[in-house]
């Protein structure tokens, strides 16, 4: 790997850890801009903020079980009931806010993205009209997908060379934690999934949580 090309100012862009952080940051900004662009009433702001708080706080009673993340289940349920935008916001806020208390780090960005995407994809589950088993399968999928996104950061920033081989090894590094996450999701969604969705549905119907036509901001 002798340098074939002369060093150029653009070499800074071959720093893949930096590039991946910028890309993930842009994706998050895009969703926040979408939220900003919508006419959001005080109800939606309160709902999104509160769901984010609940899912961040839920990490406490489960703190004794490392890598069981109850917030994933709640984020999936909120995305399922309130749609992709609310799902993303709840996921991103969960990561950002809980890390004010658990410690911010470079992982915050990737957690915001990973949990946000869990909320976004959950919104599309509705189309397939899934039963309880489908929800559990979805939880298991996100247990591993969350780990994969988090490992991506680790892999791109600290491992060299970036090949398929090293990617697989980096993914295997956390397979036990991801399995615990996936199993936790499956149990939580199995036990609580339908009940949580029912509570959120009832709430949505009661207060008509939709983007209203009135202009508040």
């Amino acid at each position: 790997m002798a340098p074939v090309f002369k060093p150029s100012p653009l070499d800074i862009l071959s720093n893949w850890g930096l590039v991946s952080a910028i890309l993930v940051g842009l994706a998050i900004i895009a969703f926040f801009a979408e939220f900003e662009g919508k006419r959001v009433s005080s109800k939606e702001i309160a709902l999104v903020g509160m769901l984010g708080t609940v899912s961040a706080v839920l990490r406490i009673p489960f703190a004794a079980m490392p890598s069981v993340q109850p917030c994933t289940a709640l984020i999936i349920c909120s995305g399922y009931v309130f749609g992709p935008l609310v799902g993303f916001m709840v996921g991103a806020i969960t990561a950002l806010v809980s890390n004010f208390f658990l410690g911010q780090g470079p992982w915050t960005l990737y957690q915001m993205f990973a949990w946000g995407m869990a909320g976004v994809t959950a919104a599309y589950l509705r189309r397939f009209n899934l039963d309880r088993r489908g929800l559990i399968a979805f939880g298991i999928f996100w247990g591993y997908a969350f780990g994969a996104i988090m490992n991506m950061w680790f892999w791109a920033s600290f491992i060299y060379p970036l090949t398929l081989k090293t990617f697989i090894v980096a993914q295997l590094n956390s397979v036990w934690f991801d399995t615990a996450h996936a199993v936790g999701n499956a149990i939580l969604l199995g036990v609580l999934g339908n009940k949580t969705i029912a509570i959120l549905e009832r709430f949505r119907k009661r207060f008509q949580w939709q983007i209203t036509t009135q202009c508040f901001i």
Partner: protein
Amino acid sequence: MRSLRYQDKETPVHKLNPFSKLAWIGSVLILALILDNPLFLLALFLLVLPIIKVAGIWKEWLSTMKFSLFMCLAIILINALVSSRGSHILFEAPFRIPVMGIPVITLEAILYGVAMSLRLLVIISVFAVLTFTIHPDDMMLAMIKMKLPYKSVLVISLSTRFIPTLVDDTQRITDIQRSRGLELDGGGLAHRIKSRSSIVIALLSNSLDRAVQVAEAMESRAFGIGRGRTFYKDIKFTITDITTVVFALLPGVLGIVMGIYGYGQYQYYPTFERISLNGPEWYLLALMTSLLFAILPLAYIKRRVNLD
């Protein structure tokens, strides 16, 4: 969860303007991500330590370090095992692993792993400064003042503000469920998750009611009426603050310039170079160190000014 959070302290670092600290943290992050040379990374790491010491968050920092050491170990191990591009072979396994090939451990890979661990430690330490010396409310205020979109910041600050309330709620609900005979300890993973689910449902419905109250409170205070906002608490900008922010931003600019001109870079593969700096890099190192270190005297000056 409660031990590892911001605590009010009367140190010069805590008293700094949040913008100065954010700028300084941003600069260190940029430098840590751009520079490759282990000497620069080591210098950055050593520069964060005095700030942590002065801020009196040594204990908190140590506990984050304990957790990061596992990550460092993973970085060194994975790099050593998967990277076979180095030329100084220390060990070659006599067997073959399917997909992976013959495991080879090279000196270059270990050196790279150690340098990357150093980078990780810098990043985590500087984030510890952020978590433990900037009050979440000040962060929010800084975000609003930076003209970030208001609704997003409002959602985040609302959420942050309700965390302690909901922590208390959780505690209360747990106590109530315990007194009703809920068994929280013992049993397998499934049992423990199931037993906690009654807390989850109660907390969720309770909080949704709170959300309605918050929305009503916002409506009654004419949220979204759209006139200019006033602030109950403000971030004041004095001459010292502006100087500090400028001084804190300079190292980041320096880092970008160094990245563009190729200073502070280091080639790990295929054969590691002697770990040293060339002529201008010594001056750059000195410049970077003094610029980053300037925040400490400035913090003391600011405190002195505030006392007067």
